[in-house]
């Protein structure tokens, strides 16, 4: 089904906004994770983990789901399709993998925020968990930068499915 131009513009705006917002909010999360890991100030460490849970729950998760949903609508509602072009397939894989990684790692984020709310975290406490949050945020920033680059450059290359579809359409239109 092909969308009307007006609907297409709306979904495109929502997709760009949610995707770029997701990247920006993960970058902010990474800064908080690094501050929480390296700071000497116990109040700053506490504030960082409390803020990280809020940002993850109310900004990053909704934006990631919105980006995935609007991307699916955008692909399926235009001639681009979901599996016709390699760059769209790669973006889909990156988006799903990043969303899953985020949802799976909400548990340590919530756990650290709970601890930070109840007690003062010293620099070395829960060290591995805190390093893991820095690593997760770094993976996500890199993955989302790659996805953004793919969206802008749209490197040429059709999948076998897209290629055969295009050939069939050509044969129908040029008998």
């Amino acid at each position, binding site marked *: 089904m092909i969308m009307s131009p007006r609907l297409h513009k709306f979904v495109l705006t929502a997709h760009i906004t949610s995707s770029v917002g997701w990247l920006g909010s993960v970058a902010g999360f990474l800064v908080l994770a690094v501050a929480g890991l390296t700071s000497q100030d116990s109040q700053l460490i506490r504030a960082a983990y409390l803020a990280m849970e809020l940002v993850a729950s109310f900004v990053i998760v909704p934006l990631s789901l919105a980006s995935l949903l609007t991307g699916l609508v955008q692909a399926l509602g235009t001639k681009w399709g979901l599996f016709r072009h*390699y760059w769209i397939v790669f973006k889909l894989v990156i988006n799903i993998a990043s969303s899953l990684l985020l949802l799976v790692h909400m*548990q340590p984020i919530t756990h650290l925020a709970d601890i930070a709310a109840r007690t003062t975290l010293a620099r070395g406490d829960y060290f591995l968990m805190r390093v*893991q949050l820095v690593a997760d945020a770094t993976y996500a920033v890199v993955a989302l930068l790659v996805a953004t680059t793919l969206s802008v450059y749209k*490197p*040429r*290359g*059709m999948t076998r499915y897209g*290629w055969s579809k295009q050939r069939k359409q050509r044969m129908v239109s040029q008998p």
Partner: protein
Amino acid sequence: MTEEDTRMADLTSYPDKRNDTGVGPNHGSTYRTPRWVKVFGIILIVALVLVFLVQHLVFEGMGGHMP
């Protein structure tokens, strides 16, 4: 269907209009996977394996998520 309707995230037209297969003209009868796809796919697989190994061998192997 207008040209505007086929755009995605920028002003580039739908690739039908730029003769896109990634391997040259679309009129050939054999399909070939573009080189960038193979390189990108290998990098993606290696990155995913590394992330998995770091997550499960380093972090979980040294104490897991929970204290």
